[in-house]
């Protein structure tokens, strides 16, 4: 069985590194992109098993646009093959609790599967990643 491939789209190389280490240690293949447009291109070419996506990149909402593109309902969308890839969205520390960004509330207008907050805690990250990959958290 080949390793699962995870695409991290984040413009902060240190955050990327902090996530890459625990993921690789757990036998995931990690590929990275440091901008929304690069990320989209890589998603289309590599078709990863999971995408970890930062909200704030070039703009404060660049991550949202990436998510919308990937989940576009348009039949001719160039990302139609990516539609079913689970997305884990990294949000800035909104609140200690993050009520304002929970998938139950925001899924309707934000097509992602789960959220994780910065700073990233490896244990939490690995838990969410494995949940999403096994489909147990799939909405």
């Amino acid at each position, binding site marked *: 069985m080949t390793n699962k491939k995870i695409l991290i789209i984040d413009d*902060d190389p*240190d*955050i990327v*590194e*902090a*996530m890459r*280490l*625990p993921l690789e*240690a757990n036998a995931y293949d990690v590929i990275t992109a440091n901008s929304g447009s690069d990320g989209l291109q890589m998603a289309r070419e590599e078709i990863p098993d999971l995408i970890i996506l930062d909200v704030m990149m070039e703009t404060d909402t660049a991550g949202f646009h990436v998510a919308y593109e990937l989940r576009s309902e348009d039949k001719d969308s160039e990302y139609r093959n990516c539609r079913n890839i689970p997305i884990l969205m990294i949000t*800035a*520390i909104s*609140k*200690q*609790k993050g*009520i*304002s960004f929970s998938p139950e509330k925001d899924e309707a207008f934000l097509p992602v599967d789960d959220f994780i907050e*910065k*700073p*990233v*805690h*490896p*244990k939490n990250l690995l838990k969410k990643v494995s949940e999403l990959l096994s489909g147990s958290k799939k909405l």
Partner: protein
Amino acid sequence: MPYNTHKPEKSSLEEELIESISRFITLRWIIVVGICTTSIFARFALKINLPLTPILFIAFCILMFNLACLYLQKHVKSHSNFTNIQISADWIALVSLVHYTGGIESPVIFYFIFHVIIAAFLLSKRACYFQAGFAVLLITGLSILEYLHITPHVHIKELFPNPVYDNGLYLLSIIFFSITSLFFSAYLATSVNCRLRRRENEIVTLKDNITDAYNRLEELDREKSEFTYKVTHELRSPLSAIQSLLKSIEEGYAGEISQKARDLVVRSEKRTSFLITLVNGLLDLIASKIGKTKEVDSQLIDINVAVKDTLQLMQEKAKSKDLEIIINTTPKPSYIKIVPDDLDIILTNLIDNSVKYTKQGGTISISNTITSNEIKVEISDTGIGIIKDDLEKIFKEFYRSKNAKQNDMRGTGLGLSIVENLINQYGANIKIRSEVGKGTTVTVTFPVDQEC
């Protein structure tokens, strides 16, 4: 750009004139009634032989004139011209009244002085003297015309048994003293009025300057807060990167490290974590202070649900300290209108304080009560309590009570400041009762929107 003085002052004077004109018009109604009743009373009760018809006709003319003024008041452009015309017309009415009540002998002549004073308060100095001059012209003209018998003199025998019109010298002295008293009144009234107006202008200018300075200061303060907000915000990304990296090292993903190195990483990670808490607290504090525009609108939120949600997230911490949590909320939902994040910050800070400052095995109870105009939330604990002297200070930014510091080294001292600022925004209030060693009770009272 900040000091644009003298602008509102003019309009405030203009407004004042308009207001005075209204009062002046009201006064005229009273005068009409006064003329009618006095003359009728004099004629029939005192049996003074007044020419009632012309006097009542004059009253009627004043009445019609006043009706016209009332209508024109809303349409005229120059209010000072309007006032000049009114006062001139009044002089004419007054002179006619004087004529029909005995000429220069008539006691009505005293009313000229009142009218000069009114003119002084309504008009400029020059216009007032001009009006006084006009009045003098009318009085002297009338006396001369009557003296020379060009106009018939109305002689009221009951009042003036000895007519003065035959005595030129007496007539002259009355005219002289009427004129001087008129001008003297004009002088006194205008000078008093001028001084008042000057003072008023000074006050208005001063008020404008103060308002400008205050606005400018507020603006600067806002700019400063915005700046602080931005700076603080910029700290977040590097801090979370640092913490994420430290966490990776700590958990061994960067390879095996010595126990000592691990300890140091854990310490660094804890300090970074505190910095992040501080930065978040500062952001909340500044946002609550400058009333930063919220991303989300106010919503009706059931406070019972919000309390349960907040507790859910603190369960772990409470469990580790073996705390008993008693919830005593109302059976039906109690809605308040609030931005969800704000309520979240308020409840999290308050409940977190209780959890933090209550020792192993203690109790925290949360209850709420609804009345027709307020919702009260009470968070009570059996914690370490707050020293009496500190009760007022704990809302101050960065202030931490001594026993709080002893109990928990870390803590930003921002929580209650944030809570207080937010609570003020919603017109709610917070009360804290506490006894050292026994516990603390925090009561937050939200006003209930009448519409809900």
